[in-house]
């Protein structure tokens, strides 16, 4: 079930809220949390009921492990066993296919069909539980009841694509929850949810229509012209932000509706002044997870310059691989690792670029790294990069050049740009206007969480009708990009 589907918005959500509030009023907080857990299992099972036992087994197994860890003196052994079991499960479902295909390719054999179905959200619920085990071993999480723990892992608001929440922040909220839906929480939650829904449906899904055709063409081996490649890249850079930030806002809003506070996941990341700053603003909860549960345990910056750079590369490579079982994700992670290493070396010289130049350079680096992230293969990645430097030619629709003859000096006229939007002459205009608006919002506007009432009113008035239009009348709902991870 998708947050951006009419079934969820008009069916699942109101039924859940009503049942939760009713259960809380009649039978108390534990009953309300029981409703929350049941609703979350229904939400998860909607896609493939067969995978429910996997989720349930993972939750129960990890809860028992943590319990055993608390009772035992051999905490470290239990932790290693728990981490091994969780990572093995993740590895089997997510990476066995990649490893088998890569091994077969090295041996010159055809890729074996393992037929492994990737369970939705496995990366997220595995990481949540790894955090819980580690924090339990560190003594940072107090013991909790099974229902609180199960709600912490399975709560539908963050089960599929995060945000990755800290056990120490969330479990106590469930433990002290009174099973009531307060009006101010409900209103604040609905508002954040609506604004997130707008980011997804109005901006991200519109931008997808300008990103997808060119990347699909590159996957099929077609050359891209300069305009097609840049429109696709700028559209994708904006799409992935609005898609994921929209999802995160919806998750935060859903949790807020029942009085649970989730952490922020985005803070205007494209306004970052350097690449370290970018990672403090982009997918904040994953960044913090990678920092606290991988980079720092590896030694962080405590063992010298060389070791820090190595730790950065390892962290970012694994962070890339976490996104998907493909070498292109490793390349994306590796590029960001390299950017971070370069950034740290640069800082040693003490030279500071002017703010705009620093922002521009950071943005360009982040955008170029999106190419391998989005492209289906390294060959497609090469085609997009060739397009970006103009190796595929500079083409524009004939009618556009006829309307603005000066364009003829730099571009060759063609009937249409086949891989730009709907391949109409006006697709260029529509794409340019949409990209200008999207990047204007990302670079100049404040994040919705820092807006005052007036700002949020303006955002709602500007976006609500378009959101309703897309939710109710669009023939289909596009899934969130991060659902595949």
């Amino acid at each position, binding site marked *: 079930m998708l947050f951006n589907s009419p079934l969820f918005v008009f069916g699942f959500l109101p039924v859940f809220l009503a049942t939760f509030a009713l259960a809380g009023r009649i039978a108390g907080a534990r009953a309300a949390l029981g409703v929350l857990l049941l609703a979350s299992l229904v939400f998860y099972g909607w896609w493939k009921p067969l995978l429910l036992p996997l989720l349930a087994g993972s939750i129960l197994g990890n809860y028992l492990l943590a319990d055993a860890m608390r009772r035992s003196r051999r905490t470290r052994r239990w932790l290693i066993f728990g981490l091994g079991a969780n990572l093995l499960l993740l590895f089997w479902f997510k990476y066995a296919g990649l490893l088998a295909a890569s091994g077969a390719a090295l041996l010159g054999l055809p890729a074996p069909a393992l037929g492994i179905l990737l369970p939705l959200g496995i990366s997220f619920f595995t990481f949540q539980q790894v955090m819980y085990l580690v924090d339990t071993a560190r003594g940072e999480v107090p013991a909790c009841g099974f229902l609180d723990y199960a709600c912490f892992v399975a709560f539908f608001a963050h089960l599929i694509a995060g945000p990755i929440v800290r056990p120490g922040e969330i479990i106590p909220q469930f433990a002290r929850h009174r099973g009531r839906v307060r009006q101010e929480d409900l209103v604040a939650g609905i508002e954040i949810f609506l604004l997130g829904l707008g980011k997804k449906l109005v901006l991200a899904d519109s931008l997808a229509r300008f990103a997808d055709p060119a990347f699909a063409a590159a996957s099929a081996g077609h050359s891209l012209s300069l305009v097609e490649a840049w429109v696709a890249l700028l559209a994708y850079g904006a799409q992935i932000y609005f898609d994921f930030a929209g999802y995160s806002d919806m998750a935060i809003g859903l949790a807020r509706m029942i009085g649970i506070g989730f952490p922020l996941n985005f803070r205007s990341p494209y306004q970052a002044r350097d690449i370290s700053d970018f990672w403090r603003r982009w997918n904040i909860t994953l960044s913090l997870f990678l920092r606290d549960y991988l980079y720092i345990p590896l030694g962080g910056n405590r063992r010298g310059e060389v070791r820090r750079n190595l730790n950065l590369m390892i962290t970012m490579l694994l962070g890339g691989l976490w996104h998907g079982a493909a070498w292109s994700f490793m390349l994306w992670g590796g590029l960001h690792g390299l950017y971070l290493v370069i950034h740290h070396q640069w800082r040693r010289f003490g030279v500071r670029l002017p703010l705009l130049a620093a922002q521009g350079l950071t943005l360009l680096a982040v955008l170029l790294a999106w190419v391998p992230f989005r492209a289906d293969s390294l060959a497609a990645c090469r085609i997009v990069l060739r397009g970006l430097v103009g190796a595929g030619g500079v083409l524009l629709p004939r*009618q556009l050049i006829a309307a603005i003859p000066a364009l003829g000096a730099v571009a060759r006229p063609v*009937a*249409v740009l086949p891989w730009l939007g709907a391949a109409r002459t006006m697709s260029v205009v529509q794409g340019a*206007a949409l990209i200008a608006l999207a990047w204007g919002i990302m670079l100049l506007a404040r994040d919705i969480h820092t807006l005052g009432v007036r700002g949020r009113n303006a955002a709602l008035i500007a976006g609500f009708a378009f959101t309703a239009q897309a939710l109710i009348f669009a023939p289909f709902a596009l899934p969130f990009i991060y659902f595949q991870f």
Partner: protein
Amino acid sequence: MRRLFLCAIASLALYFAAFALVLDRPLSLGLLRLEMREKLARGAALPSPKLVILAGSNGPYSHSCRVIGAMLALPCENGGIAVGIGLDDLFLRWLPLLHRGDVVYLPMEVQQYDVSPAANRMDVDGAMLFRHDRALLWRMKPGRILGAAFDNTMPDGLEALAEMAARTGGIGHLRARLAREEDAQGDEIGTSLATADRAFLAGLHRVEPSARAIRDGYGTVLIGRFVAAATARGVIVIGGLPTDFRDVRLSAADTGAIRAVYRLHGGRFLELAGRSRYPRADFYNSEDHLAQPCQYFHSMLVARGLAPLLHRRVVAPAAATLSLAATCPQETLPPAQHSVRTSRASRRAGPARPAG
């Protein structure tokens, strides 16, 4: 909660007011409106019996009224515009202009049959209807009215701003552009083989909907209703297959499903030997768009196919038509030797024979 509610109401009010009264897309939708208006005006002015070709852009690109009309000695208007124009809209505008003895040929694109009600509600003409033709819109179903009211996306709004600015700046002479692209009978012109986009055509790949999807499609319902309504008025309705690439598979079951849409509602059906499929080299810029020499070539075959269904004699095509059609790459046989298979509503239904 009251604040959220008021914001939502204000947003909806602004949206409706903007797209009903202010925002317009004078260049893109304006061209479609002008094209529609001119075709309807010419169609209304033709004496009966007349021939009208209705489809999406397959109509004007791949069929020539100039050729077919001349060969059948019928005044002809090529009424097709684009697939995005809702079938209910198209039929509602044309039906009052059709009289007893008139002939309508429908080489509808296959994807028009399996269009869903949701897609029909959101067809691009909804924006035109809501902005300019609300009187016609009120005659449609409530779902279509609601769909038209919510037809505009945010990118549409941005495009409207850009188009209105361009129009104010004197960019885009619609009448001149339409005159360059279409002749006085609504046929697409100037689509030469030399300017065809070969690389783009080579990359196109379309999977036609299944026979079941065709049978169950909402487009099929709309077409069936039109065939029945027009036939009841004494109009001769003949279905046909759209042009497409030869390598795009269209099974006998698919053809049978399309044929049934017409025959079950009192219409007739024309199936050309090659199921209107041609090599990619014959096309201009899309699967549905033949280049002009091949448009002529195909039209000559259609005219020969329609003649027996209409009990009309075929007039030999003009020398200019023949010479242009002869430059179509498909042309390996004289058009007279291309076989044509026809079926009529009165004949007993039977399985389709592989043609050609």
